[in-house]
């Protein structure tokens, strides 16, 4: 017996070591510990041994790089500055347009009592390491529990979504990238509004699953977060469709290129705080005292007909659009019962205001008479515009889906 053990000693030890590891693996699989909670303590050792060196190297690299770029390598800076200024001008124009769109979207959301998710706090972090394996697409960032980072927080760059926090250690966190095969992000197509789940493929590509094969998906379409996974706020850019093909069963095989460059991440933002709140209407429906008075006057409904008939100076272009005086009273009939409701609460007032606006617009659009009647048209079509991009809404707490269509 001893001779057998002696002869096969190496093999027995090999089998023993393999058996122990298989056993450990089986325990982890049985407990479904793919999120690595059971092995947290063991992982801390490895992370604690490696990340301080990585952090130091990144610091040296950044210091050297910034010294070179900020003090020595300034070639082309003036041209770049000029170009950036032009870009800022263009973006200002774009901002005006977008703020109008956003204000309109907010008005509609207010009407429907929508709840929005606002990104209220982010933490900037530096990428200091990776798993070193293409079979586990995770990165390490230099912010952890001490900086308020928690599990399942969304991680992104200015370009788009990067992943979610998987493990948190005191000063380091592990982030699962969206191109890992165990990740999943609820997404929605920007134009077609088709929803699906974004997953990583074994080869590192990103595919959109659960889109039926009878749907029309165009190459180049933007993919946004849908907010359905409760991790990523709605409307964050994720990627663009690069290839559409027939997949398994009844689903399409859609390949997506992430907007964030996942292979060259240096700095990321962790969304440490987001708020669910209803869209407020205080800035969108700014009602003037004169408008309220005009609405409450019992004689208001009768005036337009007379005013419209007597309107002497309707703009030529408007009055000539086949307007009919007969349309105006019908519009007013729609508006009047609502505007004179005595027990109007705040939300109702909003609805009333919008109804007036709509009818007023109709009146103005179809007939010059409606426009010519100031008492009617003013509260409606000439309602004050919402303020442009107040700091509360655009700077400190921008809605996550402000720029996205709803």
């Amino acid at each position, binding site marked *: 017996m001893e001779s057998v053990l002696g002869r096969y000693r190496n093999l027995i*030890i090999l089998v023993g070591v393999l058996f122990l590891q298989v056993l450990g693996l089986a325990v982890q699989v049985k407990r479904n510990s793919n999120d690595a909670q059971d092995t947290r303590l*063991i*992982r801390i050792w490895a992370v604690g041994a490696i990340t301080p060196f990585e952090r130091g190297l990144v610091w040296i690299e950044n210091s050297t790089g910034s010294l070179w770029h900020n003090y020595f390598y300034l070639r082309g800076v003036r041209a770049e500055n000029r170009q950036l200024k032009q870009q800022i001008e263009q973006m200002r124009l774009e901002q005006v347009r977008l703020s109008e769109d956003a204000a309109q979207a907010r008005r509609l959301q207010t009407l429907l009592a929508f709840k929005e998710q606002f990104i209220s706090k982010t933490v900037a972090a530096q990428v200091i390491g990776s*798993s*070193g394996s293409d079979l*586990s697409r995770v990165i390490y960032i230099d912010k952890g529990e001490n900086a308020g980072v928690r599990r399942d927080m969304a991680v992104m760059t200015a370009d788009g979504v990067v992943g979610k926090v998987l493990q948190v250690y005191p000063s380091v966190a592990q982030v699962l990238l969206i191109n890992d095969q165990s990740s999943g992000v609820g997404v929605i197509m920007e134009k077609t509004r088709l929803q699906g789940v974004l997953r990583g493929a074994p080869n590192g590509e990103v595919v959109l699953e659960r889109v039926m094969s009878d749907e029309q998906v165009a190459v180049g379409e933007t993919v946004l977060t849908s907010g359905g996974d409760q991790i990523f706020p709605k409307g964050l850019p994720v990627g663009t469709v690069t290839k559409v093909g027939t997949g398994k069963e009844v689903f399409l095989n859609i390949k997506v290129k992430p907007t964030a460059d996942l292979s060259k991440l240096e700095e990321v933002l962790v969304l440490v705080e987001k708020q669910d709140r209803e869209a407020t209407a205080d800035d969108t429906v700014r009602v003037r005292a004169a408008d309220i008075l005009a609405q409450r006057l019992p004689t208001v409904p009768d005036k337009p007909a007379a005013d419209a008939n007597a309107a002497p100076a309707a703009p030529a272009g408007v009055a000539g659009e086949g307007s009919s005086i007969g349309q105006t009273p019908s519009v007013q009939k729609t508006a009047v019962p609502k505007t004179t409701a005595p027990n109007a609460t705040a939300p109702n007032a909003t609805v009333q205001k919008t109804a007036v606006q709509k009818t007023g617009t109709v009146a103005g659009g179809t007939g010059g008479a409606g426009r010519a009647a100031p008492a009617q048209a003013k509260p409606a079509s000439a309602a004050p515009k919402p303020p442009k991009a107040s700091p509360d809404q655009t700077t400190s707490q921008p809605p996550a889906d402000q720029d996205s269509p709803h």
Partner: protein
Amino acid sequence: MTIGVPLLALFIQAFVPLRFPRFAVYLDLPLLVTIFFAMARRNPISGLFTGAVIGLAQDMLGHNPIGLYGIAKTVVGYGASSLGVKLDVENAGARFLVTLGFYLVHSAVYFTVARGMVNMTQHWSWGNGILAGLANAVLGAGLYFVLDRFKQRT
């Protein structure tokens, strides 16, 4: 050297892909270090334990269950040290072939365990596998030479 070199290999393996993403796809420095130590010591027990420790440490840096790399590198460590006893693996050509072979063994064990036990979706591509094996073999031949010199000095 016994602790420092594997640690350095793990560190480089985790850091370099941040700047060169394809590095992690084609190169596996911890595997090369395992093969080197296993062949240098020519003791199967020492080789398998070296492989197990390096593999488990590599597992800890990822998010997959711990043991996938551990099992694969244990087998490689045992095999490389057993081969080191029987063959002359000092010349560069032999090392090249040994590294290429063990890279494929390592991949085969890893994929078998990952698919069979953990139910991970893995696709094996012979083209990529052989390309990565060749890349590791070339790098390994150079790395072993450097490590040999380093070992002689210490």
